[in-house]
């Protein structure tokens, strides 16, 4: 169950919308920001708060790429593989990250420090090849920049 204080925070978000259910995406973002992932327990709590069936929360969580049902790494690499980035070496970058961290798409390193998603266009083709590292966009990637990022979060 959500605490009264937490409910107040959620109410602030929900009150912006004419229909309560419309707040679902920002609510899920808020909860994931705080807890790192969306658990079945959380889905149940949010469903109760919004007065909708749990399945409607779960189908949203599983539909959208940015909601995680498993813990991601302290440093999450979301590397773009679509056309503009592919033309500028994305495959090599992805291969190099996999080689260095010994993880594949949707995996997290055993120490919980790094995770990898291979994603589609992030809207930064002018920086190709690029990725989103946690919240930030990192462009013009090469092996050296990857090494520096891994060093930084190790």
């Amino acid at each position, binding site marked *: 169950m959500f605490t009264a204080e937490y409910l107040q925070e959620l109410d602030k978000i929900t009150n912006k919308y004419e229909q309560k259910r419309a707040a679902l995406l*920002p609510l899920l973002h808020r909860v994931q920001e705080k807890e790192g992932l969306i658990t079945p327990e959380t889905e149940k709590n949010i469903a109760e708060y919004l007065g909708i069936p749990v399945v409607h929360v779960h*189908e949203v969580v599983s*539909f959208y790429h940015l909601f995680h049902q498993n813990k991601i790494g302290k440093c999450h690499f979301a590397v773009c*593989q679509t*056309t503009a980035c592919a033309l500028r070496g994305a495959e090599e970058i992805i291969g190099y990250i996999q080689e260095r961290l010994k993880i594949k798409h949707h995996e997290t390193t055993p120490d919980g420090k790094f995770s990898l998603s291979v994603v589609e*266009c992030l809207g930064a*083709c*002018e920086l190709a090849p690029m990725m989103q590292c946690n919240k930030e966009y990192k462009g013009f990637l090469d092996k050296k920049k990857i090494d520096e990022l891994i060093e930084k979060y190790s």
Partner: protein
Amino acid sequence: MEKIVSRHFGQKNSHRLENYLKDNGYEAARKALTQMTGAQVIDEVKKSNLRGLGGAGFPTGTKWSFIPQANPKPKYLVINADEGEPGTFKDKYILEQDPHALLEGIIITCYAIGSHKAYIYIRGEYIKSLEIVQAAIDEAYKGKYLGKGIMGTGFDIDVVVHPGAGAYICGEETALLESLEGKKGFPRLKPPFPAVVGLFGCPTVINNVETIACVPPIINKGAEWYAKLGNEKNGGNRLFCISGHVVKPGVYELPNGTTLREIIYDHAGGIPNGRKLKAVIPGGISAPILTPDQIDVKMDFDSLKSIGSMAGSGGIIVMDDTTDMVWAAMIAARFFALESCGQCSPCREGSGWVYRNVKRLNEGHARPHDLNNLPGIVNNIGGNTICAFGDAVTMSVGSYVSKFRSEFEAKIQERVCQI
């Protein structure tokens, strides 16, 4: 050339209200609210020949006029800032560097259509945009440019930023509405169109970020001025995005009559490493691919349509002669297979089928009938789905096969020779 939408780009702290006000900021909104009726605003935008810059190029003023004024339900304005079309990154610049231009456009548009509530749906990955736009909204409320009785007039307006969560399909206007309502991004059947049944079942206008950012200059300087800048039926300038094998990838504001050749060679520095052009996507991944003999086309909606492609989102992706076109087709096919929302069988099954087929071709272990089957699979998706995503798969992937067939055939030959 006079810069319109990009006039503040690159200026220090251009996103701040104090700086926006220094350049006639919110004067167009004031003019509209105090000197014009809503109908006059719609008329002005119609005359300007402003067309939707998200991808479909629908005449903006006409779209606004579809809102049934007699309908007692509240009207909504929704800004599509989902910017997911591969090759496109222009709206990000407006959101991060000129959010007040967007807000001013929102005020004028809401006034025109009789709406008092606007949502800005920004893709969830654009964290910086989300933060900057929210900060701009907070500034605008403080300065009484948003809220109750703005700028000393009687007009009330509220604006809410809403984050997406990673789904390309939510750039489709009805899928966006579904997502905004807290559901999966499954597109709706049209008709009814959003202008009649939109957000929460109410009349809704949905427009792209750049389209709305063009509105304040149109009100300030007049429709005639704006219309003259472009072509006969396509007024104004446009933010073109260019990426891939070019020396200077980036955003370029240019008139709608500019040719693709000019954008690639005069503005983006041409192709690096002494290579030659092999193929170019003119308007986002959904646009049929063009060959080097087609680049003298003018980059407006009608000219590109006439050569069998589309201006789309303005996302130009350039491919040089090292590019394997079967590989490039595989990248496109994979994108569509991964981003299909799954609602319609032809697309859900067809996009995956196309991808696996092209992947086999690319990797050199295609079966001999794979290439013969491919057009049939590709062509049966478009036209058989609820939304244009299915059409995009057909048009986009189909164009690689039809224009570079010899490369696909060569891959089959390789395989045959290996046996």
